[in-house]
């Protein structure tokens, strides 16, 4: 039985996702690996299909009909994304391959032009590797330092460290909006206010927030935000960098070549306006169109409703997980402070053993260091398991998951 929640008709939503009918090891698929990538509704699959079947063409250059249709669809997707996160202008939306490329774009383009010897880059211990390594590389090259804000016992950023680390030498503060490991929602708006007071910029890794909750970049007042299409019902290979126009305009190009130039002469070149300056080469046209369809789908449900549904599932999952003997949960227990990515360990069972046992029952979870080794070190665990929920997940699926955890516990108690 699939329960009907007040705001989201899960049964109807599940009908839109063909993969959810799949059996895995002769059991119905329970897909709890949404923080890694989400599944795709028919509307997204169809939008990509339609592009390739009816109007596939390269964009921006052609005069012919197909090129015009493809260009319009690609640019409508950009406008759609801009509205979705409330960007002030469409040109502030730059399409990238994924959130990682968006973060690298800022580190390479903005970072190389604005970070120098002795400057400080503030990140947090709960960042994904993609919001750590580009900054470490930049710091090494420039003689700057990367400082980590640590977390308290609830898995929330330590306010004292935020205030201690952000100072006059800080050039940028790079913080995840929602942790892919702990689920913690960070007070990015407050952090931004503090950073701006010291003349530093705020970059938000929104890969785990934009898919799961309303995100308003103007309200947060972040200078940059990065997220991936494939974690929000869209296809892989398309991501977004949001940047305030005033920042993006001053930045040199990241990649260069076709599509991004105004004029090229043997003596040099000049760049197109935003956002094209940052989009060299033929872009992922079908990806952008698919992402646009994903945004339409999410908007159709309403991001407040998405958040409510996930909180409901997360609350239920946390309550049931707490009752599993020997189960350790990392991250806030208060669902109002978190998204639905729940990391845990069960006794001394290694995360990979646990994932294998759950897989036997058709349950897909993530296990390993979750691309957050500094956080694993801080938590003093080699790895964790992670269940992460989305709009199509149900309490019944949580029950199946809990049963499998009990099974694993019994296997390893032998």
């Amino acid at each position, binding site marked *: 039985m699939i329960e009907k929640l007040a705001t989201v008709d899960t049964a109807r939503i599940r009908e839109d996702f063909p993969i959810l009918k799949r059996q895995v090891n002769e059991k119905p698929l329970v897909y709890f690996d949404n923080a890694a990538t989400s599944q795709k509704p028919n509307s997204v699959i169809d939008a990509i299909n339609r592009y390739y079947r009816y109007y596939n063409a390269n964009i921006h250059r052609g005069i012919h009909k197909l090129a015009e249709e493809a260009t319009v669809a690609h640019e409508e997707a950009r406008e759609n994304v801009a509205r979705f996160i409330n960007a002030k202008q469409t040109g502030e939306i730059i399409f990238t391959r994924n959130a990682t490329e968006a973060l690298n774009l800022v580190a390479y383009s903005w970072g190389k032009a604005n970070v120098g010897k002795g400057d400080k880059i503030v990140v947090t211990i709960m960042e994904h590797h993609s919001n750590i390594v580009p900054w470490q590389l930049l710091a090494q090259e420039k003689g700057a330092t990367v400082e980590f804000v640590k977390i308290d016992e609830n898995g929330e950023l330590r306010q004292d460290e935020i205030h201690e680390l952000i100072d006059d030498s800080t050039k940028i503060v790079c913080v995840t909006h929602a942790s892919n490991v702990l689920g913690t929602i960070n007070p990015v708006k407050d952090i931004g206010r503090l950073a701006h007071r010291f003349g530093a910029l705020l970059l938000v890794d929104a890969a785990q927030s934009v898919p799961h909750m309303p995100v308003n970049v103007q309200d947060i007042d972040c200078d940059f935000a990065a997220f991936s299409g494939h974690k929000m019902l869209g296809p892989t290979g398309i991501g977004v960098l949001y940047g305030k126009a005033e920042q993006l305009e001053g930045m040199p190009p990241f990649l260069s070549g076709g599509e991004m130039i105004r004029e090229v002469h043997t003596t040099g070149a000049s760049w197109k306006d935003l956002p094209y300056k940052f989009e060299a080469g033929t872009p992922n046209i079908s990806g952008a169109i698919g992402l646009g369809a994903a945004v339409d789908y999410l908007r159709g449900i309403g991001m407040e409703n998405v958040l409510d549904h996930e909180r409901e599932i997360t609350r239920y999952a946390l309550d049931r997980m707490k009752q599993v003997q020997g189960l350790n949960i990392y991250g806030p227990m208060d669902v109002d402070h978190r998204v639905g990515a729940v990391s845990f360990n069960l006794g001394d069972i*290694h995360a*990979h053993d646990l994932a294998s*046992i759950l*897989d036997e029952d058709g349950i897909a979870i993530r296990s390993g260091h979750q691309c957050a080794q500094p956080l694993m070190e801080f938590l003093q665990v080699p790895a964790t398991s992670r269940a992460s929920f989305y709009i199509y997940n149900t309490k019944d699926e949580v029950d199946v998951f809990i049963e499998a955890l009990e099974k694993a516990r019994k*296997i390893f108690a*032998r």
Partner: protein
Amino acid sequence: MSSDIYKDIILDYYRHPRNSGDLTDADVRAKDSNPLCGDIIEMQLKIEDGKISDIRFKGKGCAISQASASMLTEAVKGKTLEEIKAMGKTDVLNLLGIDPGPTRIKCALLGLKVLKLAVYGHLGQTITEEVRQLV
């Protein structure tokens, strides 16, 4: 893959690893990790007359990686270095008595890789591509 991969014998080797610890008079040591899982195995070998006269392992990681490393140490005691070089995936699967499936095979083969790294190191020979590709 079925829950058979966690049959009693594997869990027994995981819980009570044979030949675990340090070999103070080891002739060669090698260590490697599986970047996917973070499994770590170190092998320490005592070598006499071209044969493994004693062996210990240390490690951290999942049941499959630790149990297979432990089983391997028992199986190779007394074997010649050439015999170790000739060992492959099938030998490890035979020891385990199960096929852990494509996602977990690297866990199972980590012990063999480290053992081979030690043997090649001791012989002063270049690590072959076949060994490098094990995990």
